[in-house]
């Protein structure tokens, strides 16, 4: 069970929490949370997920897009996306709208 599955995120449409500043450097992103004065470094894989979390796409559509762009197997990408999103939600960097379909 991935972190995303555990959090019931499979059909969620995550988006960045308000108040975060983001900068992309090469293929990685650094986030700054001014409220807590903390920095978060997303590696290249997490950045691919982060940049697709726009509040419109489901995790499934995010996984399909990444699988298409990278050529990786969809089932592997799906698990990774759920894991990354679960971690980012857990860290308070992504939020999932309570009205999203499929959210527990």
């Amino acid at each position, binding site marked *: 069970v991935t972190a995303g599955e555990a959090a019931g995120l499979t059909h969620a449409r995550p988006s960045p929490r308000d108040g975060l*500043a983001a*900068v992309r*450097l*090469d293929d*990685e*992103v*650094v986030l*700054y949370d*001014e409220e807590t*004065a903390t*920095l978060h*470094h*997303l590696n290249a894989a997490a950045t691919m997920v982060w940049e697709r979390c726009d509040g419109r796409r489901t995790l499934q559509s995010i996984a399909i897009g990444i699988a298409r762009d990278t050529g990786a197997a969809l089932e592997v990408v799906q698990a990774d996306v759920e894991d990354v999103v679960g971690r980012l939600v857990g860290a308070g960097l992504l939020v999932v709208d309570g009205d999203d379909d499929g959210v527990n």
Partner: protein
Amino acid sequence: VKIATTYRCLDAVVEIETSDPVLAALIDELFGVMAVSDPPTVRCALVEQARTYVIAVDGDSVVTTDSPAYAFAHLMWEVNRAAIAATTTDLLLHAAAATHDRGAVLVGGTSGSGKSTLVAALVGSGLGYVTDDVLPVDGLGRVVPYPKPIGLGEDAASLFATLRALRPEYRPYMGEEWFVAPAMLGGTYGRVTPLTLVVLPRYEPGAATSVTAMSRAEALVALAGGSFNFARLGNDAFARVAVLLGESECYRIVGSDVDEMVTFVLSALSSEREEIA
């Protein structure tokens, strides 16, 4: 006799007063490039009375000691503390820096990582001195020189042959920590230069030199995490570090041989790269 001169140290104008002409000469060698005629915002004094050295800040005695070296080290600490406290606009990174005609190199890392030793060696190798510990970054993401005295541990100071020729009268003021100017290392001062290289050294006794490439995102986190005032400047500071890093190459260097680290930095700054690890 009291000798007092004022120096612009970041946003502070610090008056340094002493009763010893030898110390006044040393202070002039260390701070002369920052001398100004502006009215002071803070007054620091190191006065000797019957072999007792008293450090005072704005007229209040803060340290009394019989060690001139300890007194001088504390004076340097007070001046730097006042400079950092007075600075409200520039982001202050905990880093050293030096300039080359191909760009500036930022030397980051925690206290004891070897920043000052490496930057002193770079200055001795011909790079221009910017700072050894507190690196200002302005609103446009540019490095601003803060050429404070280079603080070297006694062991590190022994690595530099030119320091053996230091005026003997200065020696009582050099103890566990030596404070030196670029000229004492055979070098000069740098100027505002775009950043092209970031290195995070870590001194490890006996270790062979090893170099690992680091992403700019990783460097941003390392530099911001060591800043003196990042949280106060918030999102603005975050943006400045990103602009500062620009297209810089970033590396971690672990080792015990400062000359090998210098060789790597010089090769990284040159067009013809020479990998050493």
